[in-house]
């Protein structure tokens, strides 16, 4: 947050650098079961993000000492493809990816009926193919669809959105420039029915009022995004990935 810049992020008419209004989402499209081998998968395109999520399991947790006799463990690996960002990323997990993998695993654990699968593990892989701000939330939103597509029982969909502060204004779904040069970033994911928060991180500077304003926007947005998740799942014969363009 907060690298300074001469870029003007909010236009005089109040629109944003990419022409959106404060509470306007970027285009979102989700396709399910785009992969053959995984038990469930989903490709999400969200603004310029292109992210694949794939699920294997439940299967016996391995190594054995990681097994929980009461529930399945959910292991998520978030990874950015080397070519997904402007400057080539060296393969392998960095500290940011490790943290994201952790909070995303925890968010999915809250939604999956892990108590039905003692000693098992559910593996969730999120691969960012093209990054454009908000990848953790987009990846988690896709992962939730992939879990459902794998037939793994969930209490609720997990669905998220980011809000932030840009030139003093609270806006929804930050784009890349807003993410780089804005004043606050607040990614949140909730369970679609209960509305409870399963992922939240925040950095920058927000007053309590601004926080409330941002979370209200997020709550409204998650309802829209959840519908896209549900539509993607009910589309019986999902188009192949090429159709996703």
């Amino acid at each position, binding site marked *: *947050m*907060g*690298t300074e810049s001469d870029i003007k992020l909010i236009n005089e008419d109040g629109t944003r650098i990419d022409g959106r209004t404060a509470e306007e989402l970027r285009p979102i499209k989700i396709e399910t079961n785009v992969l053959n081998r995984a038990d469930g998968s989903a490709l999400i395109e969200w603004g310029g993000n292109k992210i694949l999520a794939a699920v294997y399991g439940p299967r016996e947790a391995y190594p054995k*000492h*990681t097994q929980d006799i009461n529930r399945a463990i959910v292991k998520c690996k978030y990874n950015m493809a080397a070519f997904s960002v402007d400057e080539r990323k060296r393969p392998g997990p960095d*500290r*940011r990816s*490790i*943290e994201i*993998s*952790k*909070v995303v695993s*925890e968010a999915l*654990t*809250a939604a999956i009926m892990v108590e039905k699968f003692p000693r098992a593990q559910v593996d969730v892989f999120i691969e960012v193919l093209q990054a454009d701000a908000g990848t953790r939330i987009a990846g988690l939103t896709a992962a939730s669809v992939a879990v459902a597509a794998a037939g793994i029982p969930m209490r609720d969909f997990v669905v998220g959105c980011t809000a932030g502060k840009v030139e003093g204004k609270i806006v929804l779904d930050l784009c890349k420039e807003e993410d780089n040069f804005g004043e606050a970033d*607040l990614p949140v994911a909730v*369970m679609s029915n*209960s*509305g*409870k*928060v*399963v*992922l*939240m*991180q*925040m*950095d*920058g*500077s*927000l*007053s*309590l009022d601004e*926080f*409330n304003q941002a*979370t209200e926007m997020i*709550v409204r947005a998650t309802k829209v995004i959840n519908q896209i998740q549900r539509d993607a799942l009910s589309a019986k014969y999902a188009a192949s990935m090429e159709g996703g363009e």
Partner: protein
Amino acid sequence: MRLPWKEGSKVPRDELGVLSEIKKGYILRQLKEGKRNDGRELNAIREATVQTGFVTRAPGSAMVQLGKTRVLAGVKIELGTPFADTPNQGVLTTNVELLPMAFPTFESGPPNENSIEYARVVDRGIRESKMIDLKKLVVTPGEKVWIVFIDIDVLDYDGNLIDACNLAAVSALKTAVIPGAAQGLEDIPLPVTCTPIAVTFVKIDEFLVPDPDLEEEQASDGRITVTTTEDGNLRAMQKGAGGAFTFDEIREAISMSFNLGKELREKYFR
């Protein structure tokens, strides 16, 4: 086979141990009677001690004891090259080491997901509050800047490492001196602008309590950290460790965090 050392004491991996159902029940009954596991009031944090200057030869340091949790933060300040995209700023890095001496199942080795998460939450609080004025750390723009290394050794673990690490890091930074003299410059205090305080809560049944001890962490379902500054702003938040929170609970945590932050600032940073 009868072993001369107690069985069940084998070294487990990858886990902090599991709390008995009996102990969980006790903690919950206590909460319902308005008391915490260790007897304190519901919304109270544990007694803390802060000893700055413990590592006398480091530019800044602070030993913090929070209940039975103990961490030592040391600050090193060295000349180096700025990042290409921020040529007019110094550099800040934060690292947490979960020393194996701190807990029976902590292992030697590179940072794991826990220590990385803790370090990044502490780092965000310090970085996003602009506590350190990184622009004042430039010696030659684009070429030579001061790099501030915050390294935190976790020595004794009894819950709530994030808050203990944050308190130690902030205390160490506030007493740190840039060792300019060794470079033909001047020794000057590290330019510090504010005091970010992290307060962490866990949810146990319907209770949201700050500064959990280890047993409370084990009994809990969900963790949330809120870092605030004295100007009344949120600077970093992190929901962690499974579970789910309502927005009302989060607002409650924020509100308590502002209050406890104020209390801690008055107590330790007058």
